[in-house]
């Protein structure tokens, strides 16, 4: 990931979520159709589950009875009323996966994790779930661990998958991963190289930018490795804040016209020497980023006219 530095998901545990947060979410969806489901989805997205406290807060805020809220929360499979583990393991039990041996895979997952589907291990490491179909039917059985799809899973592949989750899906070894590579970036406005030999990140010259958010300003050095999440800064910008970035050479504001597909904050485009642009989201903690080599035109102008690219790769 070429993200605006590394923000890890903070595990909430059993703590009840704050009523103000719920109020904010309810407010956000107030005039939208199907608000309740969206509200619950947002809360679950944020905290991993719907606590009793959160449901009560939703009821209070939306002036509906708790029974109403509870009935919706329990009707749809997507909602969980108990806290989930650090790793979420979802085994697809769609028909195609079923005929290709998903039941055996689920049995093996149960055995290895010591829990039934829907439950979480006592150490809160794993939650096991079954889902009806993930739409990757040609590759079944499918097991998704922390959002990563594992195709053609047989009983024998279960153990390595769990071991990998414990180790961490994305290895941190930036230097030996062939999917990770350095970029030569330049300011899309003045064309000046943004590489800073004086500050090394991941053992390499880094991308140096000036940042300003919530009244604070300072230097930020991002790894030039596409795929690395490492960065160094002299200032603590609060999580979720949108930073405005400036080129150290021409001092131009680098915010581009394109907005993040995930959080709608402005994307920051940087030119790539030789053609292409890399963009990353200016919101701290948002992992959205793009690398576009196929813009048809190269350098600075492309950065401000480019269509959006997904954060998938």
């Amino acid at each position, binding site marked *: 990931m070429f993200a605006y530095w590394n923000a890890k998901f903070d595990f909430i545990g059993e703590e009840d979520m704050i009523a103000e947060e719920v109020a904010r979410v309810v407010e956000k969806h107030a005039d939208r*159709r*199907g608000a*309740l*489901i969206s509200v619950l*989805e947002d809360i679950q997205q944020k905290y991993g589950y719907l*606590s*009793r406290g959160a*449901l009560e807060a939703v009821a209070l805020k939306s002036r509906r009875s708790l029974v109403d809220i*509870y009935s919706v929360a329990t*009707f*749809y499979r*997507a909602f969980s*009323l*108990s*806290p989930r583990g650090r790793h979420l393991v979802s085994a697809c*039990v769609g*028909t*195609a*996966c079923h*005929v290709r041996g998903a039941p*055996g895979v689920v*049995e093996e997952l149960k055995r290895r994790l*010591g829990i039934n589907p829907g439950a*979480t*291990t*006592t150490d809160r490491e794993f939650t096991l779930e079954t*889902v*009806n*179909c993930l*739409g*990757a*039917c*040609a*590759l079944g*059985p*499918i097991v998704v661990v922390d959002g990563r*799809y594992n*195709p*053609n899973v*047989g*009983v*024998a*592949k279960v153990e390595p998958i769990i071991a990998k989750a414990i180790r961490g899906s994305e290895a941190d070894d930036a230097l030996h991963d*062939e999917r990770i*590579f350095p970029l030569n970036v330049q300011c899309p406005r003045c064309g000046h190289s943004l590489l800073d030999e004086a500050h090394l990140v991941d053992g390499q010259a880094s991308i140096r930018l000036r940042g300003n958010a919530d009244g604070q300003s300072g230097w930020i050095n991002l790894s030039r490795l*596409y*795929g690395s999440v490492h960065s160094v800064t002299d200032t603590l910008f609060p999580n979720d804040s949108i930073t405005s970035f400036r080129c150290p050479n021409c001092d131009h504001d680098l915010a581009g016209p394109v907005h993040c*597909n995930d959080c709608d904050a402005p994307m920051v485009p940087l030119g*790539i020497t*030789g053609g*292409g642009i890399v963009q990353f989201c200016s919101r701290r903690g948002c992992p959205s980023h793009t*690398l576009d*080599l*196929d813009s*048809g035109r*190269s350098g600075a102008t492309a950065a401000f006219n480019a*269509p959006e690219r*997904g954060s*998938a*790769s």
Partner: protein
Amino acid sequence: MMRLQSVQDLARFRQDIYSEQTIRYDRPTLVVCAGTGGQASGSNDIIRVIKRVLLERGIQDRLGLRITGCQGFCEMDPFILVQPGRQLYPKLRMEDVPRVIDAVLGDYVDEQLIYKDARDGRPRYSQNDIPFFEKQTRTILGSNEKLDPIRIRDYLALGGYTALEKVLSSPDPDAIIQEVIASGLRGRGGAGFPTGQKWRLARTSGRKDEQKFVVCNADEGDPGAYMDRSLLEGNPHAILEGMIIAGIAIGATEGIIYVRSEYPLAVKHSYIAIKHATELGLLGDRILGSDLRFNMSIVRGAGAFVCGEETALIKSVEGKLGEPRQRPPYPIHKGIDGHPTCINNVETLANIPVIINRGGAEFAKIGVPGNTGTKIFSLVGKIKSTGLVEVPLGIKIRDVVYEIGGGQVGSAKIKAVQTGGPSGGCIPARMFDLPIDYDSLTKAGSIMGSGGMIVMDERTCMVDVAKYFMSFLKDESCGKCFTCRKGTQRMYEILEDISKGKGTLDQLDLLEELATTVKDTTMCGLGQSAPNPVLSTLRYFREECERHVWDKKCDAHVCKDLVGAPCQSACPAGTEAWRYVAHIRRGEYEEAYRVIREANPFPSVCSRVCNHPCEEHCRAGEHGGEAIAIRALKRFVTDRVDPSTYRPLRTAYPDSNSPKVAIIGSGPAGLTAAHHLSLRGYRSTIFEQAAKPGGMLYSAIPAYRLPPDVIRKEIESILDENIEVRCNAALGRDFTIDSLQSDGYKAVLIAIGAHKSLRLGLPGEDTPGIYPSIEFLRAFNTGGFALARGHVGVIGGGNSAVDAARLALRQKEVKSVTLFYRRTRAEMPAFAEEIEAAIEEGVILEPLVTPMRILAKDGRLTGVEFLRNKLGPRDASGRPQPEPVPGTEFTASLDTLIVAISEGSDTDCIRAASSSLIEMSKFGTVNADPATLLTNRPGVFAAGDVVTGPNTVIDAVAAGKKAAVMIDRYLSGTTLRQPGTARLPHIYVEPVGPPGDGNGNGHRAVAPHVAVEARRRSFAEVDGTLSTEDARREAGRCLRCDLEFTQPSKTNAEVSVVEGVAL
């Protein structure tokens, strides 16, 4: 992006895209599928490496990269499709990427990486020539490879939004509706209601100027179907365009995409598409500057199958419980918040731009009358080429399954396809000529559904599938109608009973009654169609259900409580393979031997020639894994343990009054029967035509596979004081069945094997130099006569043909051996490893030929004239039929011809030997009741090849064991046919280390074998024995499926769970 103000603006904008070359078609482009399936297979890694290589080499300008949504050929993910050459490089690893790039830049094809079709192994240099694509009509799906779903410019460059342009040039809702009616398009969600008619009703519905809605139903709930996901993910603007046109047609101003939250990528791409279309002015309050208004939003479903039902969907959109309500009023009259709402499926909407652009009448030319256009199916399950296929309606199921899908995977035959998901049913293979259209599928007891087509083979249990759907439906039933809520639950419970071996035949009738009741008394589509999976299973697969109920057998090896450990249940003789493998792991070889011998009196023989069904069903071998080398482990044990280690358990001892049994034939079936009869306290006499016992083992299997000494020792260890063997005693010549009965034998077992080769049916077949394969094999194996000389031809493709070919090669006066077969190597019924070994040794394979004429000179064979065949349509078994091609005659000069097209029993002797005829089948085998082995004549049983036709040793052993049980029951006067019992693991063998861990590289052990050069002319045994180290490591790879049944339950509380929040 600038907001476009008119239709002309849009046309100009599209022109700009072409002239500015924002999308460059002037250089080669790598197309990579990054849909959900592609990403699951690692296409993101491939994309990253492509980017890396482009940057490292600085060739961004010479080579394009297009990241697309799902292209449908998911089996081959991750792949790169090269444009414009259309070469497909499938299943790539990251290290392959630079090679593909080299090839593209160097304008050549990488022969190693290029797609090769599984059917013939030959490369296909263009995607258009790949059979999977060749037979499809990709009207809708074809666009996915041409565009990046998050770039609206890509869609525009392909002519996207031209249908909208056309509509907006002179907006006329009635004309649009007329066009859609003319197209004959029917709803692709499954029910098939005519789309144009729905739109016409929606147009006239409601008060004037009342707000109306268009909803795109992307709640693709059918588990096993993903067409809608791939369309929304891969080409979202096409759906948007369809929805805007629908909005204009019916007068709606708001569009909602209702999409499952299980499809995060589809949600994301729809969101981006709406954003871009709005920015461009294609959506919003003034579409392209006109006074038409259409806004769009996304509502995510939260995982409830019933919300695919339109009235439940509306409730869900409103933020309520997704419970259906009674119709009418239909949503087109009262939908979201009481307003008229037109709900269309994703695929239906994707067809709209095509209809507007081509014209309805032109569209109607695709497919068949009443079922026009194409339909996308998700062809998944037990099939070679899985993925999305788009075919014209009216195509036969057979064409989709075999021509496009490539047929079965591995050895298990395709048994059925399931269409329509939980609302549909299974259609058996014998009905594959059925055309795929709404009405035929309904008539057959299934439905079209949204397009799931799940292929099931012999390893899919139909009881289990029905149970699966009922389990799904009982969970997903919203509970509003009592009959659906309770009915699905009860049907599930009955099926659960059946799958556990607790079912009764009465329950099958009850199931049918329940199914009919639920169908008749529920309110919504979910309940009304819920019984379909059960009804179609009962209609087409009742026998399979009864087998579960009566014999407690799940022949597909799926139902856990009937199967236990699959290696054990797969073994016809019931050998506890898991148990002896576990003992080998522990170093307890004698214990292992006793386990093997307990189940099978021919362990040394089977450790060499068994077709090892245990390995075929081994769970370690699933999904690209490698099955445990069970046969090699058995060989390891039998080679090192003396047979006397095993002392059989005798349940009775004969006395002078014990009835005597006559057994005709001393092959594995006869000897096994004699052995087990002896253990049960019976004396038997075995009559053998040849000079020594052994039957087919001696006469049919060459020594390099099965040394005669091994057979002799094995037989010696079986024989005991209760078994008398009379050699040189032939049925019909020296005795008859009548004479045996009058000599006081109370029961007779016919187990004479299949010793007679079938004839070609050509004139001159008795010319000297031509031999039936069995005669040829027997002459050498038992008499040492080498009948082959010069150039030898063998006709056939079974094990007997390969044995004959390899044996001929070893005979002194032989110059060459050619194997002539009518189909291709892939269809040869012989064991694959035997064919491989034969070719290695120098046997020439001449596939696709039909013998036409036998050529002879001076009364001796000189050659055979053949015609070349091509593969024609497939028969009911799924095998392509060979068709001789006229004019392709050729002559093979041969000095010896061995005919090995099949074997029958020499049943003439039976006819002659019995005063009352024993019933025969038209294949020349004895008709014996498969459940009891009893023939039509009281007291006369038959077992082994004489009943089944040529078969395996282990099947003969199993038949012998069964014959002993049946004869015992017969002689003791109990009922022959009794309900079966499931054979489950029940003895706990403590594992050493975690199961599945062999402390090795995880690969299957391979036994040493004699090198080709040394064995080509030798009769020494080819295969050797595993080393102790290898054997124990291999045993450690076993996943120990038995532990689930045998492991003492855990007492510590490490499995406790975090309880849910109770409100």
